[in-house]
């Protein structure tokens, strides 16, 4: 009998987004994420880096058809730069930057009430080998279509920087 090599399988990790709600209060549709490359980014509307929303939206438009989405995660833990209500943030993002990518409810990304999604994400080191706390608004994690974190970029890294684009292209299904 001929021996067969086991067929390589890419195990799909289930993202820890249970009970995570969208910005408008409904349950997050995990079909928007599973099987897709995802760029998870904690966002704030009153930060010097807030213009990154425009680049994030360009990424969304450029790669959405290839199985990619940005997931925005509002957070108010950095100098209170995301103080608004869900409605205010939604209006700000759509009217100022025309964002179309999904956004979650406001969550903690650091500290004792850190959301399970971030408990998992922050274990990934950045390019300098440093894992742990989210440093500031607009820190980016690129997840592969199989649910692995493949790259972490600190806030100053432009969402359209070559290294981010490379990571997204490697993460696509």
């Amino acid at each position, binding site marked *: 009998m001929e021996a067969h090599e086991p067929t390589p399988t890419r195990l799909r990790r289930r993202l820890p987004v249970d009970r995570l709600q969208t910005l408008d209060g409904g349950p997050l549709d995990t079909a928007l994420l599973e099987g897709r490359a995802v760029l998870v980014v904690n966002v704030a509307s009153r930060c010097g880096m807030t213009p990154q929303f425009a680049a994030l939206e360009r990424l969304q438009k450029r790669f959405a058809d290839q199985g990619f989405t940005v997931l925005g995660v509002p957070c108010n*833990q950095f100098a*209170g730069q995301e103080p608004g209500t869900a409605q205010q943030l939604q209006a700000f993002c759509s009217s100022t930057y025309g964002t179309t990518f999904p956004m979650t409810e406001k969550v903690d990304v*650091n500290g*004792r009430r850190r959301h399970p999604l971030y408990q998992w994400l922050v274990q990934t080191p950045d390019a300098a080998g440093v894992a742990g706390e989210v440093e500031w608004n607009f820190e980016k994690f690129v997840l592969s279509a199989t649910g692995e974190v493949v790259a972490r970029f600190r*806030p100053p890294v432009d969402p359209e920087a070559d290294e981010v684009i490379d990571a997204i292209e490697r993460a696509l299904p």
Partner: protein
Amino acid sequence: MSGDWQTVDATSIRLGDRIRAHGLELTVTRIDSPFMGSEDFLAFVEDSDAQWLKLPVPIEATLERCGRPTRR
């Protein structure tokens, strides 16, 4: 928190101080310096059961500190 608030230099803040600036109030449990690679900024962090909050300020900034007993 009510109390006697004094305007002080950011560089005089120590762990345990209660501070407020930009409409935010926190008890400092950690001081990060530099902040995001800049030696010109300090970041005060409260990491407690009450909240996790980071507040960066320029090192030459002043902010308010809730009264700390002064030595005589």
